């Protein structure tokens, strides 16, 4: 845990999408590098964190995993706020989860940040024989809506690391180019103690919102 004090940035992520597309499994594969086939249905919001390295910088990803259940969406939506990155997940073997993407996207755009980097993810790529949504369709949807796109498998871990890191890289580029005002925490980014970009950074300004990670 000693490394937890050594980071340049904290970036907030959310993972959204229909129930059963594998959101929690993606998170678990990313944070714990394991796959749990019979994962309990996520209730409400859950939380995970991991460090990644981008361009030599230590970045802590703080990831909110939200339940896909519709009945609680109005309550969990408040957790989209202030996210710098969003993974929008569908299941390539279930066409309906692909059809619902528009709703999820609207939700994310409305409740998260206008500059949020959104990565569209077609999960369960290991189940090629049951595929119901082609790679090209996913790619086309992403292009039409200005999203990044990847197909992943939380089971085999194919592309999981890449999905999170590529999103982080894009956000880091936005920070570098000044699109994200890092002094405003509303953009889902917090500067860490290791950051050497300036001496008067509001390190202590955080008021506990990022303190719940285990």
């Amino acid at each position, binding site marked *: 845990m000693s490394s937890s004090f050594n980071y340049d940035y904290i970036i907030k992520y959310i993972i959204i999408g229909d129930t059963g597309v594998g959101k929690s499994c993606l998170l678990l594969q990313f944070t714990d590098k394991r796959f749990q086939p019979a994962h309990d249905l996520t*209730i409400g919001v859950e939380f995970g964190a991991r460090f990644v390295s981008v361009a030599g910088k230590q970045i802590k990803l703080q990831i909110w995993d939200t339940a896909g259940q519709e009945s609680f*969406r109005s309550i*969990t*939506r408040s957790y989209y706020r202030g996210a710098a990155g969003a993974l929008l997940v569908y299941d390539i073997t279930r066409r309906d989860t692909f059809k619902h993407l528009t709703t999820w996207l609207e939700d994310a755009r409305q*409740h998260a940040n206008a500059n949020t980097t959104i990565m569209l993810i077609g999960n369960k790529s290991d189940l090629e024989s049951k595929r119901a949504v082609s790679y090209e369709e996913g790619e086309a949807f992403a292009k039409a809506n200005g999203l990044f796109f990847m197909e992943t498998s939380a089971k085999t871990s194919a592309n999981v690391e890449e999905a999170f890191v590529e999103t982080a890289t894009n956000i880091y580029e936005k920070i570098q180019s000044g699109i994200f005002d890092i002094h405003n*925490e509303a953009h889902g980014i917090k500067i860490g103690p290791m950051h050497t970009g300036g001496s008067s950074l509001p390190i202590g300004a955080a008021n506990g919102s990022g303190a719940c990670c285990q």
Partner: protein
Amino acid sequence: MDFFASGLSALRGQKGQHQAGSETIDRLCERIEYGTLVEDRRSAVLALRACSREHKRDIGSRGVSVLCKVLRQDSMDLDITKAVLETLTVLCQADTEREGTQEFALEMSNAFLKVRGASSQTEVYSTASNADLQKIVAFENAFERLLAIIDDEGAISGGIIVQDCLQLVQNLLRYNVSNQNYFRETSCIQRIPALFHGEGIDDSGVHDPMMKDAWSDQKGNNMIMVLELIRVLVVPDHSNTTTNQKSMYQCGILQLLIDLSLTSNAPQRVKASAFYALAELIRLNKVNQDALSKAVISPAHPPYVHSEDPSSSLTPPTRSSAQLSRTSFQSGRGSALGHRFLEPRDRCPAIVEVVAIAVGQYPGCTYSVRAAATCLFQSFVLENPDTQMVLATTLNPPPEDNPNTPSHEKPQSPGTLLLGALQGWQEDGEVAATDPYNSWFATVLFSHILQNNTRAKAIALAITFGDEENGEDPVSLIHAIAAALMVAVKGGADVRVALGYLALLCVWCYDSSKSIKDFLSEGAHLQFLIELISPSSKEDPMVQGLAAFLLGICYEFNWEQDALITRATIQPIILSRIGLDHFAACITRVRESKPFKAAIPLMTVLPSEEGDGRLPNLFFDYSFVEFMKRTFERTQKSIAASPHNTRPQQAQQQTNNAEMESQLTALRSKVSRQDAEMAELRSKLEEAQQALSRQAQEREEYERKMAELRWEQQEGQMRYSALEKEHEDLLVCLAEQDDELTDLKGRLQALEVGGA
């Protein structure tokens, strides 16, 4: 005409006391019916009234139609109307006079439609208690007519007549299952939504579209009557409730109630009623609970805090909240106008607003409204473990700020609102001094999230405060609550504050060894409880009682192997420093305390209980009272058991059992629902089968008849052809005879000629 004016006394004078009552009644009725002068009719009615008590039967059987007729005819004459109604009221009390009463009811239900105001009042009075009357009136199409009157009168914007009619509908339905069925089967539930939308009519009856949002006292009364009507149809655990809940959801009543209670500018007493109605509408109904969970609303502006009140700045903080609640009773027009100039508030999940109201986020809200909102919350999580867990996960604060909305409101979740209210006590001394109920309501809500839910408890246990990255030691939520409890007791806060925290800790620790381990990992907590209970303690007996109960729970369920404070540590302390007798006495004292006994299922604060700086008499939540009554005996006994006893298998099983039981109850209720459905379907099937067999019988009958007819026809045809043949034969015969006749005639002529 003086003779008539002298009325009954004259009659009595002429024929004395012994005259048969029926004769007198006949005469009086005749006079009422055929009297040409209004004075005559009036005196006859008065006379009839005078003897109504003695001759109920006679008047009941002969007089009612006459009375109703005169009521219609002379409705402008106040004396007559009054006397008629009084007479009818007397008759109405005659429950034994069956026939008379029935006839009366029929007449009456016709009559009240003509002379609305006055007689519906009588009807309101008379239908309140008599089930037979209720049925008769209902089957005379009363609901239809009453709802029509209410519509005519402008729904909730109407006058006292609307209130009376609504009261009447309610009387006809309350406790009367058959009328409730009738109400539903005749699609009257679907007409309830229309009652919510009144016309803008001001007090003098002038139509005014600007008045649409204003709430007169009468409109408030009418609205509350509508809400009561809804509640009569969804009484908890009633056999009709599930069906009615479904109908009400389908016709949009649920949404109307959400709007009325959370987004409208209705007076607070109306909002309180709406919360209770909503609570009963979603109770134990997954679909309706989900509907509330999904609802997103634009919250109404909270009731005003009148800062210009000159006394408010001078009075101590303890009084100000009461003053706020008093001013908030004067809602209606003034505040409606005031609200127009305020900016719209951020949309938020309905349940967030319910929690915000309950925990005192809006200082202007009355305790009545807060208690009602608390009831709604309880109903929302009742037998709904998923919802409990979702709410528990929202204890993690949502990310702050949202650059996409212009508003500066802090993002809130139900959990963070609760945490704020739970801790706010410590952070802001003045608020705490103002209102012990902020933390009290929060502890009640929180208890309902945790109750009987192992997973929700685990989620709550994982919540910590303090920024580790900034070198602060993280404090777990259960420790933060224990700390708040200690500050409240030591700081001499209102006893409700401590009672709330203790009750929450009892619910949290009960049957949860992990929670107990965390709670006792700070040695000061045990020390504190012991001090509270010790015989020398001067604490409030209720606080002592709950502390003893909590300590007992901490002993009974303390099964974690690596706990800092084990059973072996606790028992000797209890035995030596408190003693079993004193321990038991503490628990008995709280159970026998007045507030403990006064707790009722639907937490209610009457308007008379608050205001003028008084706090209501809410000390315990009813479900906590039930929980303690159920468990205290075992907890009390367990103190005497050896600390070295291993965890009873039973207890282990009980953990599972508790979960299984909750599942079982859920399943059971599902089964019983399905049973009811099946029974209904079966009866329908039976009916259909009966109808079918009836038709089959009829068909057989027809077929039989047809066969008979066919046979008859055949026979007829045979007979016909036989007759035809006979006819032909006869014709032949006739021709032959004709021939013979001609022949004979010829011969005769020949003979005559020969003879001549």
